[in-house]
């Protein structure tokens, strides 16, 4: 199944967010119905515990409501904007609780292993090309950090690599990605 087909259209989400900014509670409910399954899946992937993900999801929608007026509709990246809020909320929680990430049994099943595959969110031009230029270690570190919310220490443990190597792969990987994306953008 092509899951991007089932995603709500960006323009509709942007309009709903604008109505939320005008305190329209019906629009907020609609926005919640359309997007909460996406954000919940994303939080489960990072937090790995259902009860925790449910709690954070509440905070995510509280923030979406409170910050709806800050969404820049002309950019038309409503889902990406909401996913970013969800990611930061999850990272904040992990930072506060210094959570040890123990997975619920059921949660492994929802995760799709295809890394670097933006689910319905538009990728930057040539992202696939640029991510392929990185070596396997670097790509894995970036994915573990971004997709699963893992810290440097956790990545070092999971990949059985020295912490110093993990840190420098990430640092260099980010720089290489930025350079590749900007040079590709200029030539295309």
């Amino acid at each position, binding site marked *: 199944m092509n899951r991007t087909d089932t995603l709500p259209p960006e323009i509709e989400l942007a309009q709903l967010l604008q109505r939320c900014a005008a305190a329209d509670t019906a629009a907020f409910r609609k926005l919640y119905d359309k997007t*909460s399954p996406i954000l919940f899946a994303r939080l489960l992937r990072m937090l790995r515990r259902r009860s925790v993900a449910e709690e954070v999801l509440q905070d995510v929608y509280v923030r979406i409501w409170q910050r709806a007026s800050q969404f820049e509709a002309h950019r038309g990246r409503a889902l990406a904007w909401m996913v970013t809020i969800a990611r930061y909320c999850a990272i904040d929680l992990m930072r506060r609780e210094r959570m040890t990430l123990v997975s619920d049994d059921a949660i492994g099943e929802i995760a*799709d292993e295809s890394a670097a595959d933006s689910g319905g969110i538009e990728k*930057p031009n040539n992202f696939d090309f640029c991510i392929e230029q990185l070596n396997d270690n670097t790509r894995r570190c970036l994915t573990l950090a971004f997709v699963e919310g893992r810290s440097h220490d956790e990545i070092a443990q999971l990949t059985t690599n020295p912490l110093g190597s993990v840190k420098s792969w990430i640092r260099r990987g980010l720089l290489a990605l930025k350079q590749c994306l900007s040079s590709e953008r200029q030539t295309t």
Partner: protein
Amino acid sequence: MKSANRELVDRLAAEYVLGTLRGRARRRFERWLLSPQVGALVKAWEQRLEGLEPRLDPVTPPATVWRGVEKKLELRKLQRQPAMRWLAVAASLVFFAVIGVFITRPPAQPQLTQQSSLQADPQTIYWRVEILGDNQELNLHVNVVHDLPPGKSHELWALPEGGGAPVSLGLMPHTGEGHRVLNASQRAALAISKQIAVSLEPEGGSPTGAPTGPVLLVAPLAPA
């Protein structure tokens, strides 16, 4: 921003967005997010790294989540009032349309006496603050909107001369405009203040009555 600084801040922005900037370093970095330059670097990284978003099967959350959101935001109260809200908006539009024909300023509004621009530089004025009458009322205008770190608010303070404790003048609006009538202690503090300041506080304002977060902007009050 100097180029060496810019590189360092860009590196921190990248790790902030990636999620590997943690602990105190993350909290410190969040304070910088108010700067438009830092905000732009973070946005650029958010867009770059969106390519890493995984494709996941949606999972419908239990109904308790929505009920929690409703409760936290007191949405039911809002729902009961939409008719009243629109009536009030319509009534005030009619009021100002009618009044506007005859007079330029509603008679109840005291005169503008002092004003201040809270700015990072002459090109970046975040808020304009107007003081009306004998320190009776405030008008707040948002000029440049910027991101607030999650769970934070901007709070306005009067800074009394002679080093007295800052007195809160309430929260700053995010967008648009705000207006408020000051109480006696706020009026007294403003009467002996030549400067005002904005600090970053927990959502809803300082829990202690004194600034707890970093002071972001300080500006002099000038006669209008």
